[in-house]
């Protein structure tokens, strides 16, 4: 069970790493000016094993944070 969990974590880390690299190397990320208020967007990942106090990050002057979720199909518990 522990090996399986470790394997899943490694897989996730690889995926997140690849996405993070792609987001800086390829033009698919939202670096360009977009949006009706001329929104520019930057992508950040908080990966596995990051303590809660660090995962929230610092107060960086944001005027609003929208937390979003979905696609949970009635599942309140952990999965995967």
């Amino acid at each position: 069970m522990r090996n399986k969990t470790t394997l899943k974590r490694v897989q996730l880390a690889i995926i997140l790493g690849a996405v993070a690299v792609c987001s800086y190397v390829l033009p698919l990320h939202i670096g360009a000016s977009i949006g009706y208020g001329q929104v520019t967007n930057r992508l950040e990942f908080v990966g596995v094993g990051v303590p809660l106090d660090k995962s929230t990050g610092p107060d960086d002057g944001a005027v609003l944070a929208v937390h979003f979720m979905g696609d949970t199909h009635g599942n309140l518990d952990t999965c995967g």
Partner: protein
Amino acid sequence: MGGLARRVSYTERFRERLAQIPSLLADTGYFLTDERSAHGELRPDVAAKDAWVAKAYDQFPVDVVNLSSRDLKYFSRFLSKPEFDTRAAASPLLRKLVSANTVAASANMVSPQPFVVREVPVRHGNGAAAVLRVAFVGLTETETAPPSGFKFTDPVDAAKHAVPEARKRADLVIVLGNLKPENATRIAREAPGIDVMIVTNSQSNGAIFTPPAQGDKTLILFTSFETRMLGELRFYRDPQGKFSTVSRYITLDDAVPDHLAAKQLTVSAAQVETNTRDASKKLLEDWLAASRMRKSSRSVESDMSAGSGPAYVGVNTCARCHRDQYLRWSVSSHARATDRLPPRQTEFDASCLKCHATGWREPTAGSAELPGLQSVQCEQCHGPGAEHASKPARGYGRITDIKAACSACHRSDTTPGFDLQVAWAKIKH
């Protein structure tokens, strides 16, 4: 990964540590279970589970929820006019549901609001308004058939109407969508005025993360698969009032501790789901055992005195005089109507017996008597026969409107493709 208890832990810690950053919590939809019974109803265990999810969204409040077509099946029962205000007083979640393309098709039902506007205090006023107004518009795919009393309209057309209205009332317009990525892009292109779309990631084929996309001037973000990572979109505003954002995805693994009360609720919900499933199986098993016993070891006359109201006597009593009719019935599907029930134990509830057994009586206060006779026997259509059996006379149980009698059970949802003429030819007697 994921889960309510970790999600609540994170959002609560965010509010504690970063109290200067106003935050809102949004759900893009498909947050309920949608597993249906053979006849398209929510299974009893699923309905019980969904009720607990709704309870969780009230106990650990979400600010706005996109009502997807998948979620409407559960909520449709609460969106009827006579009950809505009472229900909404007990469950504030009902007033947080948004959908611009779900519309009441009956005067008795309440349409969900197309969008809501949430106001948060402005952190750096710059002499501007004291609040930041954020509109959330809801849109859903329409692949699932709507429940009775509702219809879905085209999400693109709905967006074209709702977004300009939302734009008039808000500084930021965010669309919450349960949409295919290609439809999200189309909406962003054809319904100008959307700053950000946040779209449910149901089409990801298991990929945990889908990269953001851009549709004309609109930023399109996707929820992480099954919310194993919580999304966080931070907005910044420069002195000219222009926005920039950082979209963060927080992995909800075991480094994020469980919120105890949320974990407790999760455990209770799972227990209720299991109990409901077990109760369904037990109810069916007990009923089958009892009705089998009645068939084999008790005389049908003894059923005459069972329960309250007119008594049922069973097919064997009918057969004493109506032999030809009995023979015809005995080779029909009606004679095996109960046989279909055992393979679907977990979705069984007493109401199945309305049409899969004989002798159903609507439950009243203090009375939950189940029908005593298996399958669809003579008295299911002709009515209780005890009096007729004791004093046989012409006219008992005559059916004048066959269509009405059959459609009590054979509806489009229970028997798709049912053809009255063909069916009647099989059982005509």
